[in-house]
């Protein structure tokens, strides 16, 4: 297996999200709501990666993402890289960045928070980006990187 082979087929137009930690693949799918769309989507997981050990890749045909959409995945795939494909060519590469505000997606760590007691969508201000720390807009408690649970 010396030859480099595309394990997941190339797409003509769309977005390739690479360098997703393998364990985060389904979280990324759920954050981007990919289960809800009808585009052709292929993904591979358990792929070898020097950086991540085991990585996943997702290819979404005919779909492009706004920064604010894609940045949401930074919480679970901080090193993810995006290739924007047009006519089989990579026309742009992008990295993800943790956004300043996060809505939905993450559960507040505080069991006494209103968001864990009534039907209230979670909202956080990101107070630290390197070691991700999220301050709840409602109860003002900090949810840190190790305790992030994706809804």
């Amino acid at each position: 297996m010396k030859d480099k082979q595309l394990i997941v087929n190339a797409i003509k137009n769309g977005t390739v999200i690479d360098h997703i930690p393998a364990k985060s693949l389904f979280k990324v799918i759920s954050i981007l709501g990919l289960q809800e769309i009808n585009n052709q989507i292929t993904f591979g997981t358990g792929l070898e990666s020097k950086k991540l050990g085991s990585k996943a890749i997702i290819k979404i045909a005919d779909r492009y993402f706004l920064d604010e959409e894609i940045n949401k995945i930074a919480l679970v795939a901080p090193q993810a890289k995006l290739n924007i494909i047009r006519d089989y060519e990579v026309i742009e590469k992008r990295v993800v960045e943790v956004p300043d505000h996060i809505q939905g997606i993450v559960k507040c760590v505080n069991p006494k928070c209103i968001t864990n007691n009534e039907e209230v969508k979670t909202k956080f201000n990101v107070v630290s980006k390197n070691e991700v720390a999220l301050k709840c807009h409602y109860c003002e408690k900090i949810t840190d990187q190790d305790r992030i649970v994706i809804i």
Partner: protein
Amino acid sequence: MINKSLVSITDYSKDDYLKILQVAAEFEKNPNQKLLEGKVVATLFFEPSTRTRLSFETAINRLGGRVIGFTDANSSSVTKGETLKDTIKMVTNYADLIVMRHPIEGAARYASEVASVPVINAGDGANQHPTQTLLDLYSIKKTQNTLDNLNIFMIGDLKYGRTVHSLLMAMSYFNPTFFFISPDELKMPNEYKFFLQQHNIKYYEYRDFMPIISEADIIYMTRVQKERFSDPIEYEKTKNAYVLNNSMLENTRSHMKILHPLPRVNEISQDVDENPKAYYFTQALNGVYVRQAIITSILGMK
């Protein structure tokens, strides 16, 4: 601050604090001003808090306003399973202002987003109780004639006490020096110490206050609760170290005052009550003037 909810002490700026304190001083001179005539204020207490409720209701009554509401969740439709959102939506139809106390953290922020009238947070679980902080500021200013450059001693449970955390944030505008005195298990959390470092505010941590008590301008006492200790033996060993009695006050500064958010249990001996340095009951009275100032400022009357 007109028509704006007061949920967290950080919703207000330094100028807002000073404005409230100035208006509160006017109400202290003349508490009966019928500015709320024809207005209805809802006091929604989803958990009982007699002290806070009576203070708010006294403030409203002295302003000539009418009060509707409930004193605990059992006498509201919460017991029928109504959501907070629906309760607030309904009350919004009736009242010009909502004062609410709720055991769930963030409930007041959420209510302020659902309500079309301003909401004053009268305590949401262990999170915020901004009117308490403003009355603490008022009491400090009144007894020291300034808020600047004071030595503030905080004694007791500094880990869970929301009043000390909010007071710390509010005082950070006035270049204080903090002395934190607590058992190891109940020390000031790192996030607040980090906040002080960022703002270049000096603080010192001690386990015992007697060697340094002569430095204090303000002693802010809190209750050390047994249930906060993982080890009951540790509680028995430390509980008496955080009790203030009259003989300890001998070498304190003449203008020093002792504050306590109340209710007190045994952390201040009754023999302190007659000492002119004991200020906690007047502090509670100040709460009425401060709440009058907050209500009338939010409703745009002051």
